[in-house]
C-alpha cells in the first residue's frame, strides 16, 4: 500500500476529500434553503426532499439505466414537495416551520413506502472525474475523485449569489423576503414569488438527495440521510443567507464530519462519535457568538418567522 506511506499527511487529505464528498448534499440543500429563506419562508421539510430525492433518483436510475434521469427525477419530486409547502403556507395562519416538519415526515414516509423494492438492486452511479490521476498514491486519487454534481453545485453557488444580488427577479425575491408590505406596495405577487423560490429550493434539495444515493454513499436504504436536510437549515443561518458562504460552510461541515473517520484511519479511535457532533457544536458556537437578544442576525430576511 502506497497510501500508508502518507501517514499523518493522510489526515488533511482525507478531510479534504471528505469535505467535498460529504459536503455536496449540504451544498445543494443549503443553496435551496437559502433561496427559500431569502423569499421570507423557512422550509424545514428539505430533509424530506433529500430522502425522497435519494429514493426517486435511485429508482429512476435503476429502471432507466441513466443516472442523470435519476437526478432530474429527484429534482422533480423535490419541486412537488416544495410546491405543496408553498401552497399550504399561502393560507393565512398556517405556520411554515410546522408545515416543514409535517412535509419532512410525509416525504420520508413516501420514500420508504415506495423505496422498499430498491434496497437490494444496484443502480448505475453518477460519473466522477479523477483530478488525482497524476498521482501514484491511491489515497490522493481517492480524495481527488470529484463528482460532476459537486462541480455543478460549485457553479450554482456564485450563480445564485449573482441572481439574488443583480437581477430583477433576485431583487423581487429579496424584497418579498424583507418586507411583505413593501413588496405589496410595489405590486409584487408575494405568494407567487415565495412559491417559486420554495419550488426552486425544493428542486435543489432533491438533487442533493440524488448525490447521496447515486454517488456517496451510493446506495438506497432507509438510514441513508443522517439529517443533512435539517442541518442545512442551521448551515444557512451559519452562512448568513449568502450563497457563496453556503458553499464554504458546506465544505466546512462536510470536512468536520470527515474528521472522525480520518483520525480513525491513523489510529485515533477515541471520540469517534464526538467528532460526529462537531458540525452541530460549531454551528451552535457561531450562533452564540454572533447573536444577541437586542438585535437580530445581520443579513437575515426580515419576513422570516424565526426573526419574530
Amino acid at each position, binding site marked *: 500500500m502506497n497510501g500508508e506511506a502518507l501517514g499523518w499527511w493522510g489526515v488533511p487529505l482525507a478531510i479534504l476529500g471528505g469535505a467535498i464528498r460529504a459536503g455536496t448534499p449540504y451544498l445543494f440543500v443549503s443553496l435551496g434553503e437559502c433561496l427559500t429563506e431569502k423569499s421570507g419562508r423557512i422550509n424545514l421539510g428539505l430533509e424530506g426532499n433529500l430522502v425522497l430525492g435519494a429514493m426517486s433518483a435511485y429508482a429512476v436510475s435503476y429502471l432507466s439505466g441513466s443516472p442523470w434521469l435519476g437526478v432530474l427525477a429527484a429534482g422533480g419530486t423535490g419541486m412537488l414537495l416544495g410546491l405543496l409547502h408553498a401552497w399550504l403556507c399561502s*393560507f393565512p395562519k398556517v405556520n411554515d416551520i*410546522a408545515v416543514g416538519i409535517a412535509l419532512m415526515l410525509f416525504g420520508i414516509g*413516501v420514500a420508504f413506502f415506495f423505496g422498499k423494492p430498491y434496497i437490494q438492486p444496484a443502480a448505475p452511479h453518477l460519473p466522477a472525474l479523477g483530478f488525482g490521476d497524476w498521482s501514484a498514491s491511491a489515497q490522493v486519487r481517492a480524495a481527488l475523485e470529484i463528482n460532476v454534481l459537486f462541480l455543478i453545485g460549485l457553479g450554482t453557488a456564485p450563480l445564485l449569489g449573482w441572481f439574488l444580488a443583480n437581477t430583477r427577479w433576485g431583487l423581487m425575491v429579496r424584497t418579498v423576503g424583507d418586507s411583505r408590505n413593501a413588496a405589496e406596495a410595489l405590486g409584487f405577487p408575494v405568494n407567487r414569488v415565495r412559491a417559486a423560490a420554495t419550488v426552486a429550493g425544493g428542486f435543489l434539495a432533491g438533487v442533493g438527495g440524488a448525490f447521496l444515493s447515486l454517488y456517496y454513499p451510493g446506495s438506497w436504504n432507509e438510514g441513508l440521510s443522517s439529517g443533512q436536510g435539517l442541518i442545512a437549515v442551521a448551515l444557512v443561518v451559519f452562512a448568513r443567507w449568502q450563497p457563496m458562504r453556503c458553499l464554504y460552510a458546506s465544505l466546512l461541515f462536510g470536512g468536520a464530519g470527515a474528521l472522525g473517520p480520518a483520525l480513525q484511519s491513523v489510529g485515533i479511535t477515541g471520540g469517534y*462519535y464526538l467528532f460526529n457532533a462537531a458540525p*452541530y457544536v460549531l454551528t*451552535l458556537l457561531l450562533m452564540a457568538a454572533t447573536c444577541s437578544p437586542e438585535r437580530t442576525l445581520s443579513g437575515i430576511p426580515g419576513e422570516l418567522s424565526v426573526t419574530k
Partner: protein
Amino acid sequence: MNVRVPAQVLESLLIPVSALLAALLLFGIFLACLGNDPLAVFHSMVRGGFGSAFAWRNTLERAAPLMLTALCTALPAQLGLIVIGGEGALVVGGVSAALAGGLAFEDQTPWLAIAAMLIAGTAAGGAWIGLVGWLKHYRGINETITSLLFNYIAIALMNHLVTGPWRDPASLNKPSTRPVGSAHMLGDMPGLGVHWGLALALALCLVCYTVFRQTTFGFAVRIAGGNPRAARLAGLPVGLLTLITCFWAGAAAGLAGSIEVAAIQGAANASLAAGYGYAGILAAFLARQNPLAVIPVALILGGISASAGLLQRSHHLPDAAVLMLQGIIFITILSSETCYGRLQPWLDSRRRA
C-alpha cells in the same frame, strides 16, 4: 355573547375531527389507487391498535412516551416558542437514568433506584431544554434551530458514552450501558399489564394542564407568549418564565427517556432515538398545544403506529405506510389552522340571510 362561545367550542372540535377525517380520506384514496381495499386497511388499523388486550398494551406503551415528548413541544408553545428538541431531551434523560440506575445505585433498594433513575432523567432532560430556553432569552438564538441541533448533539453524546466510557463490556452486538437489573425495573400496573410510566405520563399531562391553564403562573406564561413587550411592561419576569417552562418541557421528555430505560430497554442504547421525539411534535400540534388534548392524540397516534405490524402482515403494506399516514394527518391538521375563526362569521351571515 352566548352565541359566540358555542361557535368557538364547536370549531375546536369540528375542525380537528374534519381534518383527521380528511387525512384518512386522502390516505384511503392513495391506498385504493394502489389496489388496496381502504376499508379493510382501516379495519385492520383499528384492530391492530385497539382490537385486543395485546393491541391495547402495545398502543398504551407507545402512547406514554408520546404524551411526554408532546409536552416538550406543547409547553414552550404557550410562550410562543417552537421547540423541536424532544428527541434530544429524551435521549439525554434516558442515558442519565441508565447511569443513575446502573452505576451509582446498584446496591440500593428497588424503589430508591427507580426514584433515582426517574429524577436523574427528568433533571437532565429539563436542563437540556432549559439551556435552549436560556440561549433563546439571554443570547437571542432561535429556539427551533437550537433545539434541532441539540437533538443531534444528544445522539452523538449518547453514541459516544454508550460505545466508549460507559459501555457494558457484555453488550456485544448492540453497545449498551450496564443493565439496571431486573429488580430495579419499573413494574407493570396491577391488572393492566402496562408499566407505571403510563400513569406518570397521564399525571404529568393533567398537572401541566392545571399549571399552564388554571394558575397565575400559566396566565403569566401565556401573556409573555402573546406579547413579550407587554409582559415586560407589566413587570413579568419573562426570562424566568422562559427558563421554568423550558425546564418543564425538557423534564417531560427526559422522563419519557428514563421510562424507556427503566421500564422497557433496561439500559441506554441507540434504541432510545426511536423517533418518539419527532412524533411528539406531531402530537403537540395535533392537540393544538393543549396538554390535556395531548392524551387522546397520543392514544390515536400510538394506536396507528402499533398497527404497523398487522398492516404489514395482512395487507403487505410497508411499515412506512404508517409514517406516511402520520405525515398526511400532520399536513391536514396544520392546514386546518386557517379555518379557525371563520365559523362564527359564517353563522352570522346565514342568520342575516
